[in-house]
């Protein structure tokens, strides 16, 4: 590992923050969803980095499970977004406020 681990972790932290900002600031449900993917990937990078630091393969196995869950989550989430678009003709998360008190 030619580059020290804190550099990878810092990159992961920056990507995670970008994802959070995207979730908070954007209103298109599709882009919010992509920001969530960004955060998942940032966490994956952290797991792989620590797996390499410790010299164990367990972290990579956890990344595998995160990939599986992310795949299922994308399928379900996009199906929900398509359904929302069919019924309301919009994917703007500010317009879908039926549960607002």
């Amino acid at each position, binding site marked *: *590992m*030619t*580059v020290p*681990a*804190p*550099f*990878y*972790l*810092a*990159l992961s*932290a*920056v*990507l*995670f*923050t*970008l*994802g*959070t*900002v*995207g979730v*908070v*600031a954007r*209103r*298109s449900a*599709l*882009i919010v969803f*992509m*920001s969530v*993917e*960004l955060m998942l*990937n940032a966490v*994956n*990078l952290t797991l*792989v*980095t*620590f*797996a*390499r*630091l410790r*010299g*164990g*393969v367990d972290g*990579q*196995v956890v*990344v*595998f499970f995160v*990939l599986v869950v*992310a*795949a*299922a989550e*994308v*399928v*379900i989430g996009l*199906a*929900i*977004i*398509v*359904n929302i*678009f069919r019924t309301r003709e919009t*994917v703007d998360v500010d317009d879908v406020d039926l549960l607002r008190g």
Partner: protein
Amino acid sequence: MFTITAVLGVAGGVGVIASRQPVHSALALLLVLLTLAVDYLLLDAQFIAVLQVIIYAGAIVVLFVFIIMLLRTAGEAPRPRAAPSLGFAAVLGTVMASALVAAVTMARGPVAPVDAAFGTVQQVGRALFHAYALPFEAASIVLVVGMIGAVALGKRAHVVADATRDGAEPGPASPRVVEAVGESRR
């Protein structure tokens, strides 16, 4: 090599959250995913790097692009007035980035030596099928549930409603059901 991937990755991340068109966001996301795959290779995680390209860059981004094409939404409408969430997001981002970077850069320690077999399909697969056999089976159940859920959600609601309502009187009385079912099977 790491510097290139880091710069490209952060640029792609900014592109994801700053693009006006969802398609541009999807392409920026693809850039981030590919640079992360290179990072995994640098970290001796070959199997994860391949999975990243196949599953994320291959399947998930393609799914995103399909849905974007399907929905044909216009870009976001301009905000009515200065939105409070933008300022909040800027403050949150600054605080969070500095806190996280400060926290993770403290992570020091000796780097464990690894042999050439580290992170290969063989080693990860052995861990998956021995120590993690039960979670592996659970993951397959998660995937099946995801598939069933997508089919159930993708089915048009009025098809189900019409089918149950018109079920007693089949024939030419309900051509819309037949048409709709054919449509949903496309």
